[in-house]
């Protein structure tokens, strides 16, 4: 399969899953604010954003498997960077919360932070790896 087709197939899953994630998160927050949902209802509807994230992971997994070796390396570096950011925040702030009564950080925010770190890492790594283009 052509690299363009692979990218196209990835975005066909990535964009809708992110839309579902955002709608799911805002929808649940809205429903909770207006007390349309509570208790077990919240737990059940929390599956919507989780489903969207798992769908994105599946698309990302397939995307990385199908890319050529060079682009795969860039993707893997970006994933590792995002993972390092998330784990560093979770480990350091989590420890401070436990031992130093640091203000509580909702773990929900690790997801958007992870996505932002992943996106930024992709852009920066691609820029660094590609350097000065030598196509004539």
């Amino acid at each position: 399969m052509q690299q363009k087709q692979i990218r196209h197939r990835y975005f066909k899953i990535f964009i809708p899953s992110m839309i579902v994630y955002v709608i799911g998160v805002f929808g649940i927050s809205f429903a909770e604010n207006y007390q349309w949902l509570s208790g077990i209802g919240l737990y059940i509807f929390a599956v919507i954003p989780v489903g969207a994230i798992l769908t994105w992971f599946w698309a990302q997994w397939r995307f990385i498997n199908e890319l050529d070796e060079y682009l795969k390396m860039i993707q893997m570096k970006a994933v590792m960077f995002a993972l390092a950011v998330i784990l560093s925040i979770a480990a350091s702030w989590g420890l401070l919360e436990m031992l130093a009564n640091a203000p509580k950080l909702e773990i929900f925010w690790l997801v958007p932070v992870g996505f932002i770190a992943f996106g930024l890492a992709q852009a920066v790594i691609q820029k660094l790896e590609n350097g000065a283009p030598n196509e004539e």
Partner: protein
Amino acid sequence: MKNKLKVLRAERGWSQAILGEKLDVSRQSINAIEGQRYDPSLPLAFKIAKLFGQKIEDIFED
């Protein structure tokens, strides 16, 4: 690792995109290999050698 990919490609009048299509890799990959920022795997090196009808060691050198 030094390589003659750019020269071999130019001899045939191929763009990076065309060579990428022939090898089933992206244009960025060809760009990175030619720019010596990325060393291809052994299977890709074999594929490149086969496409140009040369030995791997004639295209790539340490």
